[in-house]
C-alpha cells in the first residue's frame, strides 16, 4: 500500500509578508520609544543641588547662571561656579566646581570640577550635594568610586 505525501506550501503568502512588516515596524517604534530618550545625554546634563538629603534645585548646565551661585545650608556657605575644563583628560567640557566654602574640611573645594553625568561634589558639614544628572547613561558609568 502506498501513501501519497503532499508537502506543505512553504512560499510566503502576501498576508505573511504583511504580518512580518507590521512586526518589524512595531519593533522599531517600541525601540525608539524605549531607547530614544536615553540618547543625546551630553546636551541635557543638569546640575542637581540637594541640601540635607532633599533636592532643592535642578538647573540645566547650559542655563546655569553666570558668576557664582551661593548655596547656604547647615550654617555653611558654598560658592558654586561654572566653567570649561582645561585638563587634557576632559578638555573643553563644561563643568561646575566649588570656588570657596567656609566649611572646616574643604573637601568640597578639593574635589575640583565635575563635568560628567554621575559625578558629585559633597560637602559633609553643610550637607550639600551637587550632582550631575542626564537623561540617559550614554556610555557614562553607573557609579563613581574614589
Amino acid at each position, binding site marked *: 500500500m502506498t501513501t501519497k505525501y503532499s508537502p506543505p506550501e512553504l512560499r510566503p503568502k502576501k*498576508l505573511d509578508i*504583511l*504580518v512580518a512588516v*507590521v*512586526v518589524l515596524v*512595531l*519593533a522599531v517604534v*517600541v525601540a525608539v*520609544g*524605549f531607547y530614544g530618550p536615553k540618547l543625546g545625554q551630553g546636551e541635557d546634563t543638569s546640575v542637581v543641588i*540637594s541640601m*540635607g*538629603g532633599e533636592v532643592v534645585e535642578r538647573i540645566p548646565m547650559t542655563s546655569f547662571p553666570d558668576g557664582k551661585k551661593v548655596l547656604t545650608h547647615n550654617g555653611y556657605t558654598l560658592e558654586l561656579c561654572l566653567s570649561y*575644563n582645561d*585638563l*587634557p*583628560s*576632559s578638555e573643553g*567640557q563644561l*563643568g561646575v*566646581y566649588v570656588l570657596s566654602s567656609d566649611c*572646616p*574640611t*574643604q*573637601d568640597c573645594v*578639593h*574635589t*575640583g*570640577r*565635575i*563635568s*560628567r553625568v*554621575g*559625578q*558629585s561634589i*559633597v560637602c*559633609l558639614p553643610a*550637607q550639600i*550635594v551637587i550632582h550631575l544628572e542626564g537623561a540617559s*547613561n550614554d556610555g*557614562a*558609568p*553607573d*557609579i*563613581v*568610586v*574614589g
Partner: protein
Amino acid sequence: MMKKLIPLLLCLLLLTGCAPKAESLDIFAMDTYMSLVAVGDGAFDTLQQSANIVNTLEQAMSRTIETSDVAQLNATGSAELRYDTAVLLEEAMALSAATLGCFDVTIAPLVELWNINGENPVVPPQEEIDALLPLVGSEHIHLDNGSATLDAGCAIDLGGIAKGFASDRIAQLYHERALEGGFVSLGGNVYVHGENTEGTAWHVAIQHPEDSSGYACILSLSDAFVVTSGGYQRYFTAPDGTVYQHILDPFTGAPAASDLLSVSIILPYDADKLHGAMADAYSTALYVMGETAACDFWAAQQSFDMVLVTKDGRIIYTPGLIEHFTPVEESGYDYQVLTA
C-alpha cells in the same frame, strides 16, 4: 490577520511593562554621604532597612557618639560590645595582623592629634607624635566573649573599616531579599548587586585622582565590592604650603608618604566572609605600603583584585580584572597588568 497580530501586540506590551522599578535613598551618616539604589520587589522596604542598618552601626561604632561602644571603650578602657561591634573589632584585629600593622584601628590617638578632618588641623610637634606611637598596635586590644579592654592610654577608631562592614551587612540584606539589582555607595565604599537597569553588569568608574572630571578606568562588575582609598580629596595645606593627606602611617605616625595616588580593592560578595570590611582595610593598608610592598602583598595572597594609580602616571591592575576592565584613553595613564 488579527488573530496573529493581537498576541504579538500583547507580547510587546508585556515587554514594555516588565522593567523593574528602581528605588533610591541618599543619607548622611558615618561621616560620609551615602547613596543606595535597589531594584526589584520590596526595593523600598529594603532601602529603609538598609538605612536602619547604617544608623544602628553608627550608634554602636562612632567615635564621637558618647553612648557608642567605641566611645565607651575609649573613655573607660573597657566595654561590653554589641554583637556587630565585637565581630568587626575581631575582624579588624585579624586584618591588622594580615597587613602587618599597615591597617590598625589603634591609630585613633594619632588621628585625634593630627585632626586632619577637623576644624583646625595643625602639624603636631614630632615629640607628641613619638609619645603616641607606642600606643599603636592591635596587641593593645583584648577581646573576650564580647567584652573588650584597652591598654592604658590606647583608643580605637573603626572609621577605616566600619563603612565596609556596613556594605557587608547591606549586601547580605540585598541577597536575602533576592533583589534583581542595586548598589550601595558609602563614601569610597561601593557594593554592586546583580545587574543594572539595562540588564548588564554595573559599570563602576574609578575616579581620576588628578582630574575630578575624569576617570582612571571603568570596571564591569556584579555582586562585588570596590573600595578606593587615596589622599587626593581629604587633606590640609600647612602655612608653609606642605600638603598633608589624611591617611596616617601607623609606623611613623604621620600622613603616609605613599608613591600611590589611589588604591582600589575589588572582592566578590561571599555570604560567609566580610569582604566589604576586608576591601576597606586593604585599600588603606596598601596605600600605606606603597607600590612595591602592595604588589608583593598581592602576589603573596592573590585572594583579591586591585587597581593601583601611581604618582608617576601608571595604572597597575591584577589579571583577575582583565575581562572586567576598560581603560580610559584620555586619562593619560599607562596601563599595566600585574603578574605574579
